[in-house]
């Protein structure tokens, strides 16, 4: 089978250039080549958004579904998966989750966790976008719902995800206007 070349930044590290089978989807590459299994494969048809990862662009953040996009479509991009958001505190050596991840845990937002990596990436993209464009307080709920609308969760009923983000944003006055 023909090969194509993979070359991008993932969680701050340069990946490639490496040759992979031409037909490789991004989620396959994450799981099987990089052993990053935090990104979940749900429907495999672009519907549930469990497999969403985050791209940092010059102007903000964009999300991509990895089950339906070939690895080649990510070349040249600066990407984050669910494995890349937490930091190790250099002094204490403690794991510090991204505030969005922390909020999800504090609100018991997920149960089985299959949808969680997708929610984390989408919600982080949304949260970061508010640093540039704060949202009107009166429109916060609807804007959270719009940003996560396409993410399917079969366990929780969504409310705890939405509440977690709402609480997090309201705790940072600079994100609302």
């Amino acid at each position, binding site marked *: 089978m*023909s090969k*194509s070349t993979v070359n991008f930044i993932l969680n701050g590290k340069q990946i490639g250039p490496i040759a992979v089978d*031409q*037909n490789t*989807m991004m989620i396959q590459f994450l799981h099987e080549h990089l052993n990053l299994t935090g990104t979940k494969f749900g429907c495999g*048809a*672009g*519907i549930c*958004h469990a497999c*969403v990862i985050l791209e940092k662009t010059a102007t903000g953040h*964009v*999300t*991509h*579904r990895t*089950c*339906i*996009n*070939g*690895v*080649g*479509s990510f070349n040249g991009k600066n990407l984050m998966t669910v494995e890349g958001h937490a930091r190790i505190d250099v002094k204490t050596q403690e794991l510090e989750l991204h505030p969005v991840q922390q909020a999800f845990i504090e609100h018991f937002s997920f149960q089985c966790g299959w949808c969680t990596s997708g929610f984390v990436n*989408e919600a982080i993209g949304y949260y970061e976008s508010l640093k540039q464009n704060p949202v009107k307080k009166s429109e916060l709920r609807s804007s959270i719902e*719009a*940003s996560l*609308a*396409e993410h399917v969760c079969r366990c929780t009923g969504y409310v705890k995800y939405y509440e977690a983000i709402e609480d997090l944003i309201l705790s940072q006055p600079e994100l609302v206007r």
Partner: protein
Amino acid sequence: MKKLIIIGLALGLAAVIFIYFGSGKLANVASAAHQSETVDIIVERGRQVAIESDCVACHTGPSGAPFAGGVAFDSPFGMIYSTNITPDKQYGIGLYQREDFYRAVKWGYSSKVGNLYPAMPFTSYRKLNDEDLDALWAYFQSIKPIAEPNSANDLIFPANIRFFLGGWNQLFFDDSDFINDTNRSEQWNKGKYFVEAAGHCGECHTPRNLLFAMQPDKALQGEFLEGWQAGDITAKELKSQGWNAKDLVDLLKMGESRKGSTYENMYLVVNHSLSHMPNEDLAAISGYLLDKDQVSIAEVTGSSDLQPIERVYLSQEDKTLSGYQTYVDYCAGCHGLDGLGKPEAVVALHQNSAFTAQSPYNSIAVILRGLPSKRQSQTRGVVSMSSFNAQVSDQQVAELVNFARQVWGAQKDAKVNNDMVKEIREKLDKEGYLNHLQMKKSD
């Protein structure tokens, strides 16, 4: 401005001529009697004619009240709103006499406001026969009156002067009756009648001139509409694309076929109108469009299921063509590595009319624009397609479309070049059609 004034004066002059010579015809409305039929039968036929004519699509607005009007049409001259056609005396057509109804539907003249804008397809309804018109009139008298006021149009000069529309009519309105071709079969003529009259297919599929009149010598050859191309549906084109009668009936009945799926406006036409029509009528339409005198019902029905997609796999050679890698990277995740699609979720690409069509316009536009999801029935639907405008270069689109036309559309020409894509991209962007799926965040 000067140009507009000249157009205005020309239309005004033509209006005078139309009113002078045409008024006699307005009064000469035939009066067909239905002595032997009961009112119920006539009303039921009228309901069917209303379905065939797709009245509901334009006359049921945001309030959802059936036939109470209020649908906005964003024309190049400004906004036009459809009107209340329920029998309400104040806002609807409750004070109409049969003659008033005739004038409005067949002649584009309302006794309330004067000349109608040709957004109302009276240029096609003119071909309806009197029997169907009577039935339609009976039906619209029988429905529930709804007291919903009409919205005022918001148009620029000279389009806001209805008087000038008489001039437009004089210049472009073909006031001849439907012509039954005695050399052709009854079924073929039935199909022709539907396509030309109630179905008003030409209103979208026939190219228009500078003053937005259909060009009869180019009937059904395709026209641009809201950033898409309402395809060329002439028999020559359909045959060259490999459509058969069953494909057409599948598409008209279910909104999907072996040759692809209907979207946007045509999806609505299928849902509101065509899917409610009997197979006999759809067979007649398919026969007329394919220029066949006889299409048997067995040929187009057989089972209610769609004709299966041919499982044709790409060859190793196909996979070496430029465009294939872009296909894998952006498209294969949904459409499959061999373009076979996913049943009830994603259309197959082999023989898809986007690629068998002579014009590559829609295949380029769909990559740039994406498509909303649609639900055809409880069990049948298609997921949305992302807009790839921000993802792919002009060259990638050109290579992709040439690849797809070659392997799935059986077209050997590499017709699409970068400039063509660039031009379409700029046009769609200017008209506000790119990234219109705002709700779609991730690709």
